[in-house]
């Protein structure tokens, strides 16, 4: 009898009648993840928001006091913090611009068929799969003023890349460009391969110049994906910690994340570092929002 009645229902409802309902399954599948993320991401942030209004120091047992907005006021008027932000901005601009140029350039070169293309593309992706801390460590040897291969190859004598205040930040940026250009290359290649071939054929029939084809067909069609690469890399470069931290101790290369680390775990200025973390967080969220906005735009196409 029951089976006769069930055949009138759609498959999902019939399955539900045999086991858990879809609603139960949905909740079972989704809620644990959401709870986990709230407990280990959102809750700590609320916790640190509380601390950001205190003069709490994690290495002392003295009672802490509520200081209101004092931490924020001090941070926002601190010239050192501003110089850390300026250094970070410089770093983001140099390294992201470098990655976009090198990465897109490589993609343009690779966007044709030739033997061993797959192997070469994969080899080019290796740098970005490595641990940034270990990469940073090893580039110290490459940059070494006395026996580093870089100075030898380029005939730079004993130029001290990492201990020279003027060059330390750029030396880190070069390493970052080496590491992450492949990412831009990968995205650009996907964008380039999606350009319809018939557009190029039409341009060839019209005897359009290479430059004309590039600026009128290739660039406009690849630009959405380049934009994604740009936002993605900007966000990551803004957060950079490991690569710079293992490469140099120069104050001129002290990115905001390194400053934050030192304030929290070397000076043990916990309350203030929580406040700084919040300032950084708001900036990252602003970039993230940009990213998601453009991502949705591109997806709609």
């Amino acid at each position, binding site marked *: 009898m029951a089976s006769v009645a069930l055949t009138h229902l759609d*498959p999902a409802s*019939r399955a539900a009648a*045999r*086991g*858990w309902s*879809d609603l139960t*399954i*949905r909740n079972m599948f*989704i809620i*644990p*993840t959401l709870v*986990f*993320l709230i407990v280990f*991401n959102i809750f*700590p*942030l609320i916790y*640190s928001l509380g*601390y950001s209004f205190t003069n709490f120091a*994690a290495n002392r047992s003295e009672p802490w006091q509520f200081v209101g907005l004092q931490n924020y006021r001090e941070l926002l008027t601190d010239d050192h913090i501003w110089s850390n932000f300026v250094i970070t901005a410089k770093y983001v601009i140099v390294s992201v611009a470098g990655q976009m140029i090198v990465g897109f350039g*490589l993609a343009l*070169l690779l966007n044709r068929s*030739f033997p061993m293309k*797959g192997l*070469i593309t*994969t*080899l*080019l*992706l*290796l*740098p*970005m*799969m*490595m*641990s940034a*801390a*270990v990469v*940073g*460590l090893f580039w110290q*040897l*490459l940059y*070494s003023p006395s*026996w580093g*291969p870089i100075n*030898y190859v380029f005939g730079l004598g004993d130029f001290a890349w990492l201990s020279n205040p003027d060059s330390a930040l750029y030396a880190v940026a070069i390493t970052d460009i080496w590491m992450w250009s492949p990412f831009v290359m*990968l995205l650009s290649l*996907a964008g380039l391969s999606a350009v319809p071939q018939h557009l190029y*054929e039409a341009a060839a029939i019209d005897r359009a110049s290479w430059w004309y084809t590039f600026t009128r067909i290739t660039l406009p069609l690849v630009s959405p*994906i380049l934009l994604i690469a740009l936002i993605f890399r900007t966000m990551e470069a803004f957060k950079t*910690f490991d690569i710079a931290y293992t490469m140099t101790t120069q104050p001129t290369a002290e990115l905001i*994340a390194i400053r*934050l*680390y030192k304030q*929290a*775990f070397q000076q043990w200025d916990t309350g203030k570092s929580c406040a700084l*973390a919040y300032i*950084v967080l708001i900036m*990252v*969220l602003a970039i*993230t929002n940009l990213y*998601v906005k453009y991502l949705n735009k591109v997806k709609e196409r």
Partner: protein
Amino acid sequence: MAAVRTSSEVALNRIAIVAVLIATLIFLAPIYWIASTAFKPKELAVSVPPTVLFEPEVTPFVRLFTKRVQMQKTVDPQVYEAAPWWEKRIYDGGERVLKVGKDVQLSQYPDRFMNSLIVAVISTVLAVGMGTFTAYGFSRFKIAGEADLLFFILSTRMLPPVVVAIPMFLMYRAVGLNDSHIGLIILYVAFNLSFSVWLMKGFMDEIPKEYEEAALVDGYTRMQAFFKIVLPEAATGIAATAVFCFITAWNEYAFALIMTNRRAQTAPPFIPSQIGSGLPDWTTIAAGTFLFLLPVAIFTFLLRNHLLRGVTFGAIRK
């Protein structure tokens, strides 16, 4: 493309291919330098001019795995003759392998490597497991505010690790999870989960709903359909996601630096800490780095077809 190519086009193509080869060599040079330094005799690592061609040896790897002491005087010829080949290598370098009784003392590297392995594997299994279920939920059922929830999940990955690390450090200290495997695993699961959900949702969306519906008609429950039909279909996606999560956890530095110092320390903070002051032994550091990079290099080759999706959270399909 037009079937007939002008000679200038052919020439341009050749130039481009040569340029690609040169660029590839430049990009791979630093990796070659790491790999080659790992097989160099100690004095060649810091030679001027830098050595490109040399007779490879495995002494740096022996040094990586054994504790050594600098020798005060020349070694007793009898002891030298009795020593195994790898100890002789160390003797030749003016060092002696440290022993307690007959046992060779291991350096800390094997421990740190194991810690990396334990933390990366367990956190990957958990992140991919939870991510697969959640992605299925998002892919197949109607959820109020789905876009907002997915954005929330993604946003957890956008936070700079140092920002999350400060409160987590305090909380871990309060409950005694500092310098423990479990503490690090929890952090890496939290870090990788968003990625796992986004990537798996992309793979789930591509499995036709009709497959499960057919199974439901055949009398399967929804859970049976999920385990017997959907999961096997998603196997490649799960494997790709797992490798990405593994690589991220394997390479992670900031959390490991802050949350561990001895017992649960992983290799990324350990390798740089070996530099110390004075003249670092680059061959041993290179050997440690080389071993550490090896799994990632292998996975990169296995993953090459999924790379684009992986690095963009599955937002872009190839």
